């Protein structure tokens, strides 16, 4: 029972950055923009998050620094792809290359430094409940934020007028523009939101997951988040399931070692990446009838005037 509790806690922790980054990207892609720079925004978020928390001793300020860093990078992406109509795939790659460099530059001074990790919730009476106590009432704030975030996105997309407009823009920007909706403005806001989520997801790693900063600590999580959006068929509900599944796969490697499974550790570490490939193939195959992706995803839009 205690082992199961430990595993669930570990899975939740490993899933949270994926859920945060993928939630933001889901909204961005629903608006018709493919931002492949999630990994870059995450890794800069991690460096800035750590820097902020290290300088002030506050997890909250660290998280805000991470969000701001992600938003700043996403604005560069928006300027390029929306302002200058540059190919989104190439710009996303550029964002990741830049992000890795910037993160290394910022983080260089912090390697070896430690901070205290984000405090976990403690509610007397509830957190001490057996089994469910720690799982439901003993997480760090990020876990609750990630769940609130995807619920809010789901509500926004399907229950509000603005969400409807955003989806319309993602499916057909020409018609939406003709109806008078500000396509580029709404896309810019969506991209900034996605950047903030990716920055927060990155900041989670040094603020709550480990108490230190290592260059390259996102280790492809941004790319896995992108795959998760495909896995979820752009639906928020499935995104939650997907994120926790992937979190579970990445935790497997840690516990497999503990159980003395006789496979090389590198093979276990490769599991999340291999799982991503398998999932992408399976999902794409079952969807051969017609793609569920937003119809305008990744296409350039230049308003006619």
């Amino acid at each position, binding site marked *: 029972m205690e082992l199961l509790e430990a595993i669930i806690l570990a899975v939740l922790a490993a899933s949270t950055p994926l859920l945060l980054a993928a939630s933001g990207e889901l909204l961005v892609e629903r608006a018709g923009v493919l931002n492949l720079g999630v990994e870059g925004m995450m890794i800069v978020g991690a460096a800035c998050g750590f820097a902020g928390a290290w300088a002030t001793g506050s997890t909250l300020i660290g998280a805000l620094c991470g969000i701001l860093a992600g938003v700043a990078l996403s604005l560069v992406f928006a300027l390029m792809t929306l302002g200058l109509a540059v190919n989104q795939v190439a710009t996303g790659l550029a964002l990741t290359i830049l992000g890795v460099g910037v993160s290394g530059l910022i983080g260089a001074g912090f390697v070896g430094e430690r901070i205290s990790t984000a405090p976990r919730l403690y509610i007397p009476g509830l957190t001490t409940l057996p089994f469910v106590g720690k799982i439901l009432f003993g997480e760090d704030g990020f876990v609750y934020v990630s769940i609130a975030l995807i619920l809010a996105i789901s509500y926004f997309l399907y229950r509000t007028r603005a969400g409807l407009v955003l989806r319309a823009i993602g499916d057909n920007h020409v018609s939406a523009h003709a109806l008078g909706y500000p396509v580029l403005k709404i896309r810019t806001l969506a991209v900034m939101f996605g950047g903030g989520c990716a920055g927060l997801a990155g900041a989670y790693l040094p603020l709550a997951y480990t108490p230190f900063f290592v260059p390259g600590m996102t280790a492809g999580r941004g790319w896995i988040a992108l795959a998760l959006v495909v896995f979820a068929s752009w639906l928020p509900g499935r995104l939650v399931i997907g994120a926790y599944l992937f979190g579970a796969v990445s935790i497997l490697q840690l516990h497999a070692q503990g159980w003395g499974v006789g496979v090389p550790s590198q093979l276990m570490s490769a599991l999340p*990446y291999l799982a991503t*490939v398998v999932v992408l193939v399976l999902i794409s195959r079952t969807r051969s009838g017609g793609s569920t992706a937003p119809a305008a995803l990744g296409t350039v839009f230049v308003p006619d005037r």
Partner: protein
Amino acid sequence: MQLVLEKRAERSTVIALISPLIAIGLTIVTMSILFMIIGKNPIAALNVYFITPLTDAYSLQELAVKAAPLVMIAIGLSLCYLANVWNIGAEGQFLVGAVAGSWLAVKTHGTDAGAWVLPAMMLLGALAGALYALIPAFCKVRFGASEILVSLMLVYVADLLLDYLVRGPWRDPAGFNFPTTAEFDPVATVPLLFEGGRLHLGALIALVIVIGAAILLGRTIKGFEIRVVGAAPRAARFGGFSSNQLVLLTFAISGALAGLAGIIEVAGPVGHLQPGISPGYGFTAIIVAFLGRLNPVGILIAGLFLALTFIGGEQAQIAMKIPLDITKVFQGILLFYVLACDSLILYRIRLIMPQRKAADGAA
């Protein structure tokens, strides 16, 4: 004030030619500002970065040594990008090529194997790179899976495979427990072009590949097909060109070139297999491909330029204690400017003042 794009009636050839130069200029300005922010003299830093490496023979050879893998990989990538498919896992194909070729070097180590070893290693490296690249291509063609994500995931897998081999089965027993294979035998090593120099056969191979690609793209039907499928998929369908076949072909070629670059790198400048054999060649090659305008000769020039950033970055670290990561920042910024300037080929930028807009509305 508002930024508005206006489609040009026709592509601007003038800007197409000078846009890489504008991009480099803007990057240098941005870097100067960045150097000032981190408290270094920008003139001195730029000098160490871009001029000093060009002033002695050793650095010039090193430039060609670093440019060779970049050019090889970027040529392959440019074929993919021309066909409008996105292989961004060249780093993984590079590593797998290095691993596959090294297998032979490890197996024949200490035996008196003949001169066939090195050619066989290169063949294995290219073959392994091609097969590794065919995984995302096949997943795309057969299942419609994103080649971007699949090829990228395989980079991490290749990295871990290399790590496993050099820490486990292939580790040099006499290597003081370092994760590395034994030094390759002379027959498994890429020969130097000059005695005592750094320049090796790989640089010549890269040149041959540039010429081959120029012929393929400029003079053959296959090259024409690649360009048509990328530029006008609908026309290509009417022309009876199979885009699926071209996805497989361009991925296989680019994987083979990346794999070849990988084995040449370990059998040449590095001399043994170990983690960290690539300072990100596979990703930097993406920038080389774009900066070179997806054109073989352009890629050759762009490859030399980006090789300069690697060497300049190392020298700036030694001489001015500038963190090595500045090279990646530099490369990222450069790619941004290259892409932004390319936008000017198709569009004209106009600034619209709000007052005028209001006046327009009133009229």
